[in-house]
């Protein structure tokens, strides 16, 4: 079975400071990992993904995430937070068992990020 955990329901950070939103996962095969953001009264917007290759992936709006296989983590980061980054962030994982065979996307519980001016 696959699962993903976001241990923090809420993260507060001051504008201009670096931010980290944590995510850990569990899969039986190879993980495809994703971050999505949800602004109030909006759908989910895709931020970035890790499929293979470089462990540090860069995405939209200056966000990046680091894949750490030994710690089974995929934390979302940004060097300097903006007030406009305040939103609900979801980590998701897809367990790829064999080529062409993958389970459905599983989402974490979400982390509410608040950037304080």
């Amino acid at each position, binding site marked *: 079975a696959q699962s993903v955990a976001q241990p923090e329901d809420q993260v507060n950070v001051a504008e201009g400071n670096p931010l980290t939103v944590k995510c850990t996962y569990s899969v039986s095969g190879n993980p495809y990992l*994703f971050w999505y953001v949800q602004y109030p009264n909006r*759908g989910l*917007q895709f931020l970035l993904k890790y*499929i293979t290759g470089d462990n540090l992936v860069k995405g939209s709006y200056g966000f990046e995430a680091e894949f750490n296989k030994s710690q089974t983590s995929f934390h979302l980061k940004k060097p300097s937070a903006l007030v406009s980054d305040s939103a609900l962030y979801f980590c998701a994982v897809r367990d*790829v068992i064999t080529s062409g065979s*993958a389970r*459905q*996307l599983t989402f974490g519980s*979400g982390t509410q990020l608040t950037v304080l001016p």
Partner: protein
Amino acid sequence: SAVISQKPSRDICQRGTSLTIQCQVDSQVTMMFWYRQQPGQSLTLIATANQGSEATYESGFVIDKFPISRPNLTFSTLTVSNMSPEDSSIYLCSVTQFGITYEQYFGPGTRLTVT
């Protein structure tokens, strides 16, 4: 990425009635999915909409309650039947595109309130 629209964007319905939500994509897509997001919760997959055949439902969801259609590669509907206040949620359409491995995109959602 695919541009996904949903209708209606929100609705307030009385218990016992049904609502059909439409999902339209601006390009052909491989797969279409329907998710539910209950208030303050994460996303839960309801079903995969299969073109020309019955949808594939996840555990806990049944066709009588959530009938789904997908007549072509760009359009799908989800009906929430015999609604109760527990059905109050955001319902999201999601797609994967040809040639983009496993990347999934989401529509803006339909916010449903059942009174």
